């Protein structure tokens, strides 16, 4: 009697959140999956069931493959680079150098800026001939680069921006975690004869693992979700060199209005993200020590 009433109360308390989650997360996912099995309605022709046709199209679509490969390169470079840089900056700021508050703020500023503003700043860095980068390189005879305009360098240019922006954000988490580590642990390790590099590898780093996992999940999601700078700077070009999966979905859905195909692409993106999240929470979680 008592427990069942408690169960009712519990369910009622959960209801608002459940309704919101269902309406804005799970129901759209289901609808997307269903939509991906239907053709795109055009004019008077309504959507009809076409099974896995969209997915077959996708397998043969070179732009899809290009965007997938780009996204993989983008993720595999931005994630480790931004995490590594974040950790390095956090260690530096935590080491009690002078002007610590100022350094911390300087590192954090890129995070506070909206991506479009960031794109604007970097536009100036990347401008051929007049840009900061070219001006710095010209004395060495390396000027005249069109960083965003050539397909060899465009993706790299975007990667640099992302790392620059994300590292400051992740640094804050690392800094908080570093300040949680008891100095006595470091001292104990030193007394046991550990050199600074050993203290870092065998004490600091393992104790930062929960933070690293959290940051890594955020970084993965960011790598597939953050496409503002593609909008602002390259529009996926030149020659699809900076085409990322989400931007491609946007193009297909809102430029070409092929909503059925866009739904199928979305399903692939969601599946990839779900897989990564499952790996991170399932596998890595077991290997991470929580205090």
């Amino acid at each position, binding site marked *: 009697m008592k427990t069942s009433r408690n169960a009712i109360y519990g369910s009622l308390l959960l209801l608002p959140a459940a309704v919101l989650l269902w309406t804005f997360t799970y129901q759209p996912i289901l609808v997307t999956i269903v939509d991906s099995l239907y053709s795109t309605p055009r004019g008077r022709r309504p959507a009809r069931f076409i099974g896995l046709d969209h997915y077959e199209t996708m397998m043969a679509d070179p732009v899809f493959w290009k965007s997938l490969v780009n996204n993989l390169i983008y993720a595999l470079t931005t994630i480790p680079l931004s995490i590594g840089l974040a950790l390095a900056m956090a260690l530096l700021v935590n080491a009690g150098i002078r002007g610590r508050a100022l350094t911390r703020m300087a590192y954090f500023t890129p995070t506070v800026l909206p991506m479009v503003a960031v794109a604007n700043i970097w536009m100036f860095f990347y401008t051929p001939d007049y840009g900061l980068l070219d001006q710095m390189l010209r004395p060495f005879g390396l000027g005249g680069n069109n960083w965003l305009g050539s397909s060899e360098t465009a993706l790299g240019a975007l990667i640099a921006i992302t790392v620059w922006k994300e590292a400051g954000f992740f640094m804050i988490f690392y800094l908080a975690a570093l300040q949680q580590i008891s100095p006595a642990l470091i001292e104990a390790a*030193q*007394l046991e004869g550990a050199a600074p590099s050993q203290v870092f590898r*065998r004490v600091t780093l393992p104790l930062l693992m929960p933070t690293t996992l959290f940051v890594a999940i955020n970084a993965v999601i960011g790598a597939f979700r953050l496409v503002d700078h593609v909008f602002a700077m390259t529009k996926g070009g030149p020659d699809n060199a900076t085409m990322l999966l989400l931007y491609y979905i946007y193009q297909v859905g809102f430029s070409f209005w092929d909503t059925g195909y866009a739904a199928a692409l979305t399903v692939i993106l969601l599946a990839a993200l779900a897989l990564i999240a499952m790996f991170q929470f399932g596998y890595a979680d077991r290997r991470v*020590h929580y205090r």
Partner: protein
Amino acid sequence: MSGIRVESLTKEWGTVRAVDGIGFEAGSPEFVTLLGPSGCGKSTTLRLIAGLEQATSGRIVIAGRDVTGLPASKRNLSMVFQSYALFPHLSVADNILFGLSIRGVPKAERKRRLSAVVDLLGLGRLLDRRPSQLSGGQQQRVALGRALIAETPVCLLDEPLSNLDAQLRAEMRNEIRGLQQRLRITMLFVTHDQTEAMSMADRIILMRDGRIEQNGTPVDLYERPASTFVARFIGTPPMNVLDLTPVDGGLAIAGSSGPAVAPSGSSPARLGVRPEHIGFAESGLAAIVQSVEYFGADTITACRVGQQLMLVRTPGRPALTPGTTTHLRWPPAAAHLFDATTGLRRDAPLQQLKPDAA
């Protein structure tokens, strides 16, 4: 020389002088405790020896080697932290083996030493656990194990028992003392608990405000305290320290009607008598019983002598009720004389309190 030698060691933080030119030696084997009230510089002294703080001036010699400028990792000593400082991400076994694996000790040797330490401390069933899965006493033994496995000739301990309950503390006291004797090493043990220091140490270094007040055996500190500070720090309840006034034939307790309890000297003096050395008698120093506290094995009676209070500790049940007039006596050897201005011990021969002196 093995052991530790500290010479005019000083540590300043800005204007704070946490350690003020102290010097002492700890032999090998020897169990030395650093004792003193909170904030007197015990931990700082220990951390200076460990190399976790840099000395402002002075010299530290360990096992005949001047280590003053060396980092902690090069000093070849082990330490048990007050907070234990166990690595939360490592198992008990890995915690204990941490130092050996850092130093690249071969596997077989590691195994041998681990099993020796595990037997010594009774950690057998805990090896796979994480520190968070251990009780306070178990954590403390792991911390001790991590310090002992290094087999360093010097082991520093910073209030390792302060987090334990009374019974476990008494057990660990014996265990640690026993270990030191079996391993024949130098142990420097910080505590602010005088009973801990008295029961464990070969020698006690009593500190106050960054200086050494007295350095001696527990018996020295109890029987011949160097100052009123030492006298009142050691023993429960603390020693009675009383103001004296000159009377005919010597010094009497101020406010009392005599008799003279000490010979007169050139400067004002104070008299110290331990509560457990005082007895009630038919004659002697007149006193009025003010309050009585019964502790089972003994009774502490607070008596008023003039304006001053004296505690008397007698075995068994209370014999007197508050308000009673009584007389106090103590053997001559139980009286200590201190300089009233400096508080230092004065070694003048003490006059016997004659039965009929009143």
